[in-house]
Structure formats: structure tokens, C-alpha cells
């Protein structure tokens, strides 16, 4: 790697350079979190929120291919990168006037419904404004097609984080060579296993109903290579992700999750902010402080701040705001400040900052379990559904196991749990014993009370409940007032959760919101149907795959 020349590419016509292994987002975030994207309806400035390939905030066009996530793309020499859905540029987007002219939002359900002569023209305009990227050209799409990857191991392990690697190693020690699928672009190798990096598992239907009852897993390797794995057992160790939070300006450039902050600060780069406010008072906040604490000015928590965070903060002179409501981010195109109010109707404070890092709540990456038909249960500690898992990692689906934090295991137990899971996989045993109790996260259970207070803040109706589709909190409230009940129907009434992240960032909050608005526990507000694929998979990748023999479905 010594002497590897920098990669020269262009961004909006200007020359830029990237080092090997650097993502486009990290190149563009050298000075600060960039404004790359405008929201789909109101053209509000949006920043990269998640940093892990889910949100709308870093979508760009690369060599004529639309909707490329800058956080998942490593530039190569000669690339031409442009922005989408903004004119003339994301920083100065004339269509931003839509948002300014209609601060209460566009009512697409009831508005403009007369069959006037102008309808056709009007519909053309709406279609023009909707959508993110221009369609790709033939050449771009043809260039992407690659032969499919097919494997038929005994066991496939999904996720090569600490937990997944431990399971792979434990299996190897028992004479099994698993295939390990990992989404990260440069995962560390795992001895005794075949590693497929930059590969995202997107669809795990229930196992075949006949014969050996094998699983068929669909995945794709960046940028668009189809992957199909047939296995007897599947161990899912997909971990979790940092959730979003409702407040004014919660998708403005500069608001990012801890996942994004940690990805952009790693491995030895300064973080893309200088005076950040970290939200959260638990383990995740402590992790953010330990990796980029020098660039943090304050820690704000919905609830209490744990001693380990207090200690890390006091070493660096970081201010602490426990039990605080985060009201809104200041700054028009970039976060410049944050407005807080002490819980229970206390005084308000404004803190100057250039980033807001959300580290208050981690939610399990549980989509594959939903797809496979595994029994799921409500975890009050995190405020989300996760698979029902017994002590040996077995789920209700024979042959499907969970390990790591998606199974509610805490990091200190990963290695031990991996051994138990590997034993169960080898012996093909089903559920045994009682489930491990998931690590409770105090801040998450408190969020219902937190949101109850937040819904009394004047002006909260204009906050964005779903950044991908631009759904405002007022629209959710209106749906409930009009007699629609339950997450499934409110989702369809408002379009919340139907955008590019498929509800990953809005639905965990929407469940809590609805629980307050409908006055019943979050678990009763409903079960969110998680439809395949886990992340958008290019049609070319699917088209390259051979047809599986059976027409198995996920429930």
C-alpha cells in the first residue's frame, strides 16, 4: 500500500482526491459534515445521518448511477460525482422555496384534488419534483453486471462484528468452515471461515419446507454483484444501530448518529466536527467520547448520565445536561447551535455547536428475523422488536440462531455465547432453557415520558417525523385525530416509513409517538411489517442470480 497514489475524481466538476480505502463521504467530510442532499418534498437541506448506508442524507450520482450512498462508495480515479434533486446545487437550491412557502407542509391527501384542466400539468410538475435521481443510462447499468456468487456451506454467519467473528471461530474450532457475510467494506479476516466482505444480506425467507430444510439467503456485494447462499444453518449476528430522535431540524447537516460519527472519525482521522453535542448518557455516549471526546463540548441526555460518561466528560471539561429535552437545532443549512430545556418544564439554554451526535438508543438490526418468520418479542428496554432467543441462541425457526447484541447479549458475553451457539449449531438442537435477559437501556424506556413532554412543545407539529419522505409530526397527529389507529394504518395514511431507509429511522420513534397519541402501550400500537430487502438491492444483482427451485415465501 506504500506509495499508493491518491485517487483523483471530480465532485460537482471540481477535482478531489481520495486515499485508498476512504469512502466518498469521508472525503467530502474532511472539514465538516457536508450538505449533499435536499429532502424529497420540501427540499430542506439534509445531511448524512447514519453513515452506514441507510438514510437519504448522502445520496449522490456517480458516473451516471443514481442514488449511490456516499458512505458506501470508495471513489476510483476518473469518477465523476454529482449531486441530485437540487438546483442549482444542494447549498443553494431554488426549490427550497417550496418548504418556505408551505411551512405547514403540503397536504397531498386532501389538497388539489379537482379534475381541472390543469391537473395534467400539475401532475407533471409533482412528478418532476418527486424522485431523487435521474434514471441511469443503459451503459451505466450494463457496466455493473457481474457473475453471481453462489455458495452452499453448512453454516452461514451474517455479520463479522465481534460477535459474528466469535461464532465463526467457534464453528471453525468444531471443524465447520462457515461462510461469513459482512456489510463493512474492509472487514478483518476470520480464520477458518470464508469471508464475503462488502456484502449485505438482504433476504432470508423461511427454510425450505421439504428435504434438509435448507435456507436460501440472498445478498449482494458492492456495487451490484448478486450473492446466493444455501445453508443448513444460519447464525445472525447483525448487532444494532443508533436510532434517530425527534426534534426541530433533526435531519439538518450536522445531525448524525453515533454510527456515523464513529465511522467518520475512524481509524485515525479527526472527526468532521470541532464542538459537538453528544446526546445520550449511556455506554454508546461513552464510546463517542472515547473516540472523539476532544471535539465534544457538551453531553445532553433525555435521562440520567451514567458515571462512566460523567468521568470521561469531566476529564475534558465537557458540559453535562442530564434530564434535558432537545428542542431544536439552530442554523439554516448547517447545525450551529442546539436549544435545550430541562425536563419537567425547566429553563431553556442554547449551546453553540457544529454537530449533534445521537448516541441515546441502540435498536437491533432485526429485519432478517422478521423475514424468516421467527417469533419476535417487544423489548421494552430498547423500545423495539427483537427475536425471541433461547439461551443457546436458537430462535423459533429450526436452524436459525442469533448471537451478539441482536440476541440481547452484552459484549462481555459474546465469546462465551459464541461457544454455546456453535455447540447448538453442530448438534442441530432447537431452543433450550430460558432466554438471556437483554441488557436494559435506561434512556430508551424513558423515551415515552420524554416524548410526552415533547408533544407539548409549541411548534412540534412542523418537526419532521420521517426525513426520507418528508412527513411532519402534525400529519401523524392528524391521522390519529381522524380515527386511524395503529402503526400499520398510520404508516400508510401518512407514507411515513416508505422511503429509502424503509422506516429504520422513523418507525422506532413513531411507535413511541403513537403509543402516546393513542394512549396505549407501544407494543399494542402494532407490529411493523418488515419487508424484504433489508437494504435496496440493485436489479442487476438480482437478475444475475439463478432461480431458486422452490417458491418459498416469508410470512
Amino acid at each position, binding site marked *: 500500500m506504500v506509495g499508493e497514489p491518491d485517487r483523483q475524481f471530480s465532485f460537482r466538476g471540481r477535482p478531489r482526491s481520495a486515499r485508498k480505502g476512504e469512502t466518498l463521504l469521508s472525503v467530502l467530510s474532511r472539514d465538516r459534515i457536508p450538505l449533499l442532499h435536499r429532502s424529497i418534498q420540501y427540499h430542506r437541506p439534509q445531511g448524512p445521518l447514519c453513515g452506514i448506508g441507510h438514510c437519504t442524507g448522502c445520496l449522490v450520482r456517480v458516473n451516471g448511477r443514481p442514488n449511490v450512498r456516499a458512505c458506501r462508495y470508495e471513489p476510483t480515479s476518473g469518477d465523476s460525482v454529482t449531486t441530485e434533486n437540487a438546483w442549482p446545487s444542494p447549498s443553494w437550491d431554488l426549490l427550497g422555496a417550496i418548504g418556505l412557502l408551505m411551512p405547514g407542509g403540503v397536504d397531498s*391527501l386532501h389538497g388539489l384534488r379537482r379534475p381541472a384542466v390543469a391537473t395534467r400539468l400539475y401532475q407533471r410538475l409533482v412528478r418532476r419534483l418527486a424522485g431523487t435521481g435521474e434514471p441511469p*443510462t443503459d451503459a451505466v447499468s450494463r457496466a455493473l453486471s457481474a457473475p453471481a456468487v453462489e455458495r452452499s456451506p453448512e453454516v452461514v454467519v451474517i455479520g463479522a462484528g465481534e460477535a459474528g467473528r466469535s461464532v465463526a471461530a467457534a464453528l471453525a474450532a468444531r471443524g465447520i468452515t462457515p461462510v461469513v457475510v459482512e456489510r463493512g467494506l474492509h472487514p478483518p479476516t476470520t480464520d477458518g471461515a470464508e469471508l464475503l466482505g462488502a456484502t449485505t444480506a438482504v433476504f432470508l*425467507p423461511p427454510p425450505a419446507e421439504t428435504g434438509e430444510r435448507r435456507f436460501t439467503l440472498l445478498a449482494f456485494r458492492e456495487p451490484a454483484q448478486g450473492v446466493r447462499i444455501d445453508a443448513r444453518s444460519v447464525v445472525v449476528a447483525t448487532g444494532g444501530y443508533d436510532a434517530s430522535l425527534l426534534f426541530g431540524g433533526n435531519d439538518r447537516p450536522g445531525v448524525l448518529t453515533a454510527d456515523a460519527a464513529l465511522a467518520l472519525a475512524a481509524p485515525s482521522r479527526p472527526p468532521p466536527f470541532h464542538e459537538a453535542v453528544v446526546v445520550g448518557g449511556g455506554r454508546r455516549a461513552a464510546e463517542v467520547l472515547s473516540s472523539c471526546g476532544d471535539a465534544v463540548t457538551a453531553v445532553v441526555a433525555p435521562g440520567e448520565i451514567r458515571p462512566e460518561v460523567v468521568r470521561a466528560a469531566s476529564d475534558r471539561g465537557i458540559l453535562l445536561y442530564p434530564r434535558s429535552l432537545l428542542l431544536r437545532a439552530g442554523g439554516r443549512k448547517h447545525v450551529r447551535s442546539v436549544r435545550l430545556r430541562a425536563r419537567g418544564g425547566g429553563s431553556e439554554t442554547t449551546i453553540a455547536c457544529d454537530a449533534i451526535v445521537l448516541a441515546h438508543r441502540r435498536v437491533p438490526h432485526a429485519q432478517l428475523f422478521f423475514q424468516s418468520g421467527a417469533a419476535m418479542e417487544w423489548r421494552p428496554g430498547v423500545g423495539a422488536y427483537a427475536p425471541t432467543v433461547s439461551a443457546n441462541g436458537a430462535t423459533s425457526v429450526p436452524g436459525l440462531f442469533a448471537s451478539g447484541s441482536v440476541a440481547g447479549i452484552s459484549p462481555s458475553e459474546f465469546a462465551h455465547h459464541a461457544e454455546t451457539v456453535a455447540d447448538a449449531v453442530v448438534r442441530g438442537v432447537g431452543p433450550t432453557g430460558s432466554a438471556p435477559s437483554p441488557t436494559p437501556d435506561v434512556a430508551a424506556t424513558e423515551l415515552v415520558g420524554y416524548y410526552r413532554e415533547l408533544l407539548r412543545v409549541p411548534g412540534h407539529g412542523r418537526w419532521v417525523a420521517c426525513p426520507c419522505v418528508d412527513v411532519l409530526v402534525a400529519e401523524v397527529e392528524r391521522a390519529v385525530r381522524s380515527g386511524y389507529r395503529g402503526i400499520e394504518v398510520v404508516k400508510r395514511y401518512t407514507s411515513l416509513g416508505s422511503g429509502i431507509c424503509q422506516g429504520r429511522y422513523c418507525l422506532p420513534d413513531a411507535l413511541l409517538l403513537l403509543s402516546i397519541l393513542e394512549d396505549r402501550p407501544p407494543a399494542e400500537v402494532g407490529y411493523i411489517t418488515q*419487508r424484504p430487502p433489508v437494504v435496496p438491492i440493485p*436489479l442487476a444483482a438480482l*437478475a444475475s442470480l439463478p432461480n431458486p427451485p422452490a417458491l418459498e415465501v416469508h410470512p
Partner: protein
Amino acid sequence: MTFARDSYRTVVVGAGIVGLFTAYHLARAGGGPILVVDRGFLSSGASGRNGGGVRQQWETRGTVRLARESVQAYRRFGLEFGFNIWFRQSGYLFLAENEGELARLRNVHALVASEGLPSKVLDGDGIAQLIEGIAPGAAVGGTYLESDGLLYPFPALWGVYEAVRSLGVEVALGVEAHGVEVRDGKVAGLLTSKGPVATSTVVNAAGGWSGDLSRRSGLEVPNVATRHEILATEALKPFLDPMVVRVSDGLYFSQSMRGEVIGGLTLPHRPGTSRGQGSSPAFLTTMARALVGLVPRLGSVGVLRAWSGFYDDTPDGFPVIGEDPRLPGFVHGNGFGGHGFMLAPATSRRIALAALGQPTDLDPAQFSPRRFLAPTPVATVERLQLG
């Protein structure tokens, strides 16, 4: 909570687009009190899972007429119901890959044109102008009718739901119908998960589950539920106006108002409702291959989500509308295959008439439940069950 009353004049099973529209017409005709029950949430059936296509190109005159009347109803929908359903009349384009298929489409064209609808026969070039980026030689020709189009199903459901509620119809969600109660050979009530309700008329608008309900009410019917899968891609700027349907494999796709490409094709799933409304790898790969083969530029576009729903198929491709001659008071409003949304406004008016015991203008040989009881097989068949 049970029901507001002990007895109703009519109970409709199914709060999909057909059940709700039927309740609407019943209420407007003064046919109350009316109860609608549905075991799921609003939009949980096929009405919340479909492609939103509305077409008038059919192989039989009866269907063309019902579809044409429905198009007019959907044009007025915004004013009548106060919801914008984004009805966009940007055409349906049927594709033929060979001369045999094209000959069939020419017949469709002749029939549709004879009903006064300006359908057109296109050659390969004409088609290439309507589908930007179609693979060369992918179609030899086809038919196109611009007044066909697309709508957004959800606001249509909300609109009719709110309308029936304001007309005093009771809609009970989360209530399952187990079958009818029969007394003196007639319908006397409906048995539900929340207990029995008395009524002399039950409308079976249970969509893909209508066959189950009929059978649980002691009536053998030929309705068959078949799972049909569908997917949506990431949203793109507009590049495609019409709904495209390919004759050979039933591939259909369109671009929604929001920019997603939405479409599906027909796979030989095992019939029945027991295996759920999910997706299969076979569908994703087959559909991707069909779509990319026809429009290669879509290869780098991501599939955002996939789902499925049930068609309620009948042997002759016509819906079943009218009172069951074997059980007075049991009224069918089902068997819509994959096209119940586009036919709902016109057919529901007739289902309501039948529930009120009034005659309809429908040809009994094509629409009445009686046709399946005749010893000789049905004569006319609506075969254009595509898209």
C-alpha cells in the same frame, strides 16, 4: 367492545375497496343500518397491496363497460370524497412479442374501439417512444389507450371509509366473520369473533378470502386465492408515463407519482391463503430478470421493497355479483382476480342493488353466482387476466 346494535339490515364482510364502496352505495340508497366487519386493519387486504392500475382494455364487452364507468367514477373521486387519489390518465400499453400475441391484441383493440374508446395499435417504434430505454426488438407491437391510467389506492380507501362513516355506517375492524347463521333456509345472522349479529343480508366482499367465507357458510364456490408478488424500486425522476403489460408472462410495471417503479409478474404459486402474503427469492430474481431484460437501464436501480397479496380468481375471469340462489340473503361481491380496484366503483353499485334485492343490468351468464351451478360449463371467458 362489541357492536353498536344487535341487528343490522346488511352486514358487509371485508373493508377493502369493494366492501367499502358497496356499503357506500347501500347507505346512499337508504339501506341502513349497515355494519362492515374486517378482521384486519384498514388496507390490510389486496386493496392496500395492489399496483393501482386502471384499464378499460378487456376482451369482453361487459368488462370494458364496467371499467369505463369506473374510470369516470375515479375522475370524479376527488370532488365526491375529498381525497386526492392522484388518478393519472397516462395510458396502458400492452406489449406483444410475436405476431400471434399481436393478433390477439388487435382483437382487443377492435372491441375497445367499438365501445368508443380511442385505443391504438402501435408498432415497435411506437412502443419505443413510450418506453424510454426499451431493449431493441423487445416488442413487435402492442395496443395503447391513453385514458387508462394509475391511481394511488390508499387515499381511495380513506376517502370511501370516511364517507361511509359519515353516512352512519358502522365499521368494525379486528372482527373476523366465521360464517353465516341460517334459519329457514335463509341468512339470519353473521357469526363473528365478537359474537353473533342478526341480519337478513350478508355481503361477501372478503377478497382473496371470499371462497373461505362462502365455504364456511356451507356454499361450495369455485373461487381460488392465488398469491401475486409485487415490488417497488427507489424513486427516480419521471421517465415512464404508461403502465406497461407484457402479454407473454404478465410482466407489468409503471412509475408511480413518487417516482418508484412498481410492478410484478405471474408465478405459479400454490393456490390458497394458508401460506401468507410474503415474498419469495424466485419472484425477486425472475422479476428482476424480466425488467432488466426489457429496460436494461434499470439494472443499477435498487429494489426498495417487495410484498404480495391475493387475487381472488374465478374459472371464467369474471367477478361474482349477486345473491346466491342456494342461500337467500347471501350476496356475493367477489372473484375480482387481479383487477378489483379498477372495477370497484361500477361493480359495487350493482352489488349494493343486489343486496337490496333489486335487479341489475349485468348479464347473469357472466356475473351471477348462478353460472357456476349450471350443468354446462360457462360460455364466455374474460381471458385478459394480465397486469
